[in-house]
């Protein structure tokens, strides 16, 4: 029983992290039909900023906002420099461009900071746990879940209550019509990128606090997980991305916890078999978008 409860806590924490990653991808996809594979590099660059600031002994009150701002600025730069000019292009062009940006940033990091993993010296808080009746709840687990829930609430309010948020949802529904009605396309897209950059910055903080290590390729796995979570959750819907993230996290932990010894090494094979099964049953994802029709 304790094992099951503990596994549930572990699953919730991992699911929150995956949901956060998936949100960043879904935000951009909803509006631009672009899977930003360079989202992982937003996380990676923010992570290195964190590393260098910790090394310079700056106070956390400075480091946390700096990391978030890095994510936002880099994402907006990506939009302005790489994606704006190809905005109406074929989906494959958008995809290849995002791969190119991703690859470029990884290799710049490789050339400047080297491929040797960097270790971040973090305060003890990030390694501590609450222990209650045989259950171990890492303080970071609590942070993961709380941050994700708060973000969802705030993001939801932003998209429903603010002008730019409503415009973003309109653009996600029907980009052409929104423009006809006076929505400024550039502003909406830039805001979406800024938001996804903010999410990347937060995800970077959580990931680095968990692992205390950095490599130039640390974003690659994160973005693949985010992409898969978005697909199984239902592309184009933010709620879907969150659900997809939780499903993936829970499935991963459940299989890790309950697969027999000989098979647990193939855990990911089972996870992705599950993903394939989910997509066979519901090809458009678990939450189908209202506008899940091919855009002309």
């Amino acid at each position, binding site marked *: 029983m304790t094992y099951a409860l*503990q*596994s549930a806590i572990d699953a919730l*924490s991992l699911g929150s992290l995956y949901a956060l990653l998936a949100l960043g991808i879904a935000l951009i996809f909803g509006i631009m039909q672009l899977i930003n594979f360079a989202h992982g590099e937003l996380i990676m660059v923010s992570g290195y900023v964190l590393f260098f600031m910790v090394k310079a002994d700056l106070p956390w009150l400075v480091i946390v906002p700096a990391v978030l701002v890095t994510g936002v600025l880099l994402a907006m730069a990506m939009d302005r420099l790489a994606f704006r000019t190809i905005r109406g292009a074929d989906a494959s062009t958008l995809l290849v461009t995002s791969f190119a940006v991703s690859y470029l940033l990884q290799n710049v990091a490789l*050339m400047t900071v080297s*491929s040797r993993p*960097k*270790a971040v010296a973090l305060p003890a808080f990030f390694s501590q*746990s609450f222990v209650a009746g045989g259950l171990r709840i890492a303080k970071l687990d609590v942070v993961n879940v709380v941050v994700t829930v708060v973000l969802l609430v705030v993001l939801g309010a932003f998209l429903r209550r603010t002008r730019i948020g409503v415009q973003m949802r309109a653009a996600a529904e029907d980009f052409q019509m929104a423009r006809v009605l006076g929505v400024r396309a550039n502003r909406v897209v830039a805001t979406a990128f800024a938001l996804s950059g903010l999410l990347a910055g937060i995800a970077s903080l959580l990931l680095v606090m968990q692992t*205390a290590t950095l490599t130039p390729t640390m974003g690659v796995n994160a973005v693949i997980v985010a992409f898969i979570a978005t697909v199984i959750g239902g592309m184009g819907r933010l709620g879907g991305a969150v659900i997809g993230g939780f499903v993936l996290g829970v499935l991963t932990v459940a299989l890790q916890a309950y697969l027999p010894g000989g098979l647990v*090494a193939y855990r990911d094979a089972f996870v992705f078999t599950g993903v394939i099964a989910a997509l066979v049953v519901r090809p458009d994802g678990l939450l189908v978008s209202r506008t899940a029709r091919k855009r002309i």
Partner: protein
Amino acid sequence: MKIRSTPALATALCLAALSSIALPGAAAGSPSTSRAKSPIVIGAAVALSGGFEVADIPTLNATKLAIAEVNAKGGVLGRQLKLVVSDTQSQPASGAKAALSVISKGAQIVLVSSDFDYGSPAALQAESKGVISFSAAGTSPKFGPSGIGPLSFTMASVGTVEGATDAEFAYKHLHLRRAFEFIDTSMDFTQEVAFGFENRFPQLAGKSGIVKRATFLQTDPSIANQITQFKTALPKPQFIFISSIQPGVAKAIRQIRAAGITVPIVGTDDLDGTDWLPAVPNLSNVYFPAYISFLGDDSNPKVNAYVRRYKKKFGSSTLKAYGVTGYDIITAYVRAVRKAGTTDPTKVAKALEGFRNVPLLTGPTTFSSKLHDQLLRPMTVMGITKGKDHFVTKWKLAKAPPVK
């Protein structure tokens, strides 16, 4: 073209005869004095960029140090050693090109990357050209007759040696009987080390010696569940064997210690180096096998002297324990060339295969016609206490571990 006049033909023949005497070392049968002046070319087709250079540069630097020292003492067979390097860019295709490049410059031995995936393209090219390939720290026995071929060697120890060393050290030195395994299944090396541990530890502690085996991947951000399995395992494990490499192993040990688990941890030689220690502040009770101690506290004074000379020439940032294999390659090659009396690769390979416990900095080294990798050379057990590395002991295995 017909030569029309006899005088023109005669002139041509005279000129040809004169030029063959005048040009130094031109003809195959030229006197040995002119051949002896030409340097022995040591080729290195290793990664200088692309990611893997962090592993190859420490060994390449050690090679450069060894070559400089050999040359200062007069070289080999009256000839100086000359290093020619070509960048594999951490890519297989470029690896093959790099090998061909150094071979075309006269290399009869090619140093290759310290990993089979990165180093095999260059090694295969060398083998096909009848030239020796030598990996510094690549543990795979496929650098040898069972893989690349009879001209391929490695200065490393087979991966299972590390696992067997961990098993014997935990049982005999730390007196521990019940192990819990964290196995990183992302790559061959970690699975080989695990195989060595899983073969030796039950031989010492019985079938119940290994309480449970948990697996994880380099890319897992969290091993929370595996830690839960440790905490709920019965009978209670007394130590953890973790077979993983950086950065996964730093992440894992961080989370293990964060969960309040204080039992001893034994790992692979990738725990060598101080870069990752900030991730787990004030770490204690961790042990791992390495090739030497890079701290100057090794029990072999020659190793400590090497460390001093390396630091003097290259500084500390690229000083790694496994780097010493790059130094030992040159020592071994020089010895084999002297024994064979030639740089002919087949004869030098035969001389290398005659090595029985040859004292190198990494330890007594043996090659045979079946295995060009180490099974019985003692490794150096290092410990981490209060966040600092230190030498613990040299460990001689009771018997040879299996080759996977």
